[in-house]
């Protein structure tokens, strides 16, 4: 069974590449460190996607509002108004997680070997006070830095 921290490493590398290559956010720092933790304080917007069948667990991405707005501005093709950016910033964070999680699944050993996986529709939490406590067996997080702000990626089972 592939190490859970390795799955988060794949997600982090894919996220960095996606933000740089597809969204043009070139100020992302390439270095990152994966930690096993007992709790985490979310940023202002957090999106979750759960996996079931041959892989079980939940991925999340957590960012502040300013980064989520920059992400949607860069995601939508062509010009986009401020109103649209404000309206779609949170939904776009979920779409970002959907893309990067979906993109890495075929690189995971169990799927390469013919396993199946079901991805949930993303769920969004808009509350930076929530903590994941010790309710899970495994909780890994990884923080990547963009313009001195953290983007938190996580995986728990």
């Amino acid at each position, binding site marked *: 069974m592939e190490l859970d921290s390795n799955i988060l490493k794949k997600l982090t590398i894919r996220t960095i590449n996606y933000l740089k290559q597809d969204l043009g956010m070139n100020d992302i720092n390439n270095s990152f460190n994966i930690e096993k933790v007992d709790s985490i304080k979310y940023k202002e917007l957090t999106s979750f996607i759960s996996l079931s069948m041959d892989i079980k667990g939940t991925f999340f991405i957590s960012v502040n509002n300013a980064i989520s707005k920059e992400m949607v501005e860069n995601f939508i093709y062509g010009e986009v108004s401020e109103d649209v950016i404000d309206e779609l910033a949170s939904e776009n964070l979920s779409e970002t997680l959907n893309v990067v999680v*979906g993109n890495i*699944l075929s690189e995971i050993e169990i799927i390469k070997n013919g396993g199946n996986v079901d991805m949930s529709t993303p769920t969004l939490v808009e509350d930076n006070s929530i903590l994941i406590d010790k309710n899970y067996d495994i909780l890994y997080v990884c923080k990547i830095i963009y313009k001195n702000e953290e983007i938190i990626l996580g995986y728990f089972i």
Partner: protein
Amino acid sequence: MATFLIVDDAKVMRINLKKMIEELGHEVLAEASTGYQGIEAYKEHLPDIVTMDITMPGERSIKDGIDAVKGIIDFHPAAKIIMVTSHGEQNKVISAIKSGASNYLLKPIQLEKLEEIVNSLLVDKNKSEE
């Protein structure tokens, strides 16, 4: 120029796809946010091409994009449907193709790849109409 129906529960994806489709010189006739609404919109507008998200909230008996493909193909077997996926749901893509979808498009969507698939579907459509 071809006409399109976009079926996706994420408004941000519908807006993005619409802008790309229009950039390629085509027209989006309608958008839908569930598979059920997608089938109804297809029957009303009869677009040349449908883009269909796979994972969407269920409505009535249509639980996802694959069910919507079946519903559209039942109504019009020659319908041209492009599945839109981040590839994590590879088993579902295969299921959608077996159900009658014509092709699939990987997220993040690249304009050039969208153009390539659309052009191939239009060639197929023109051949079948000759």
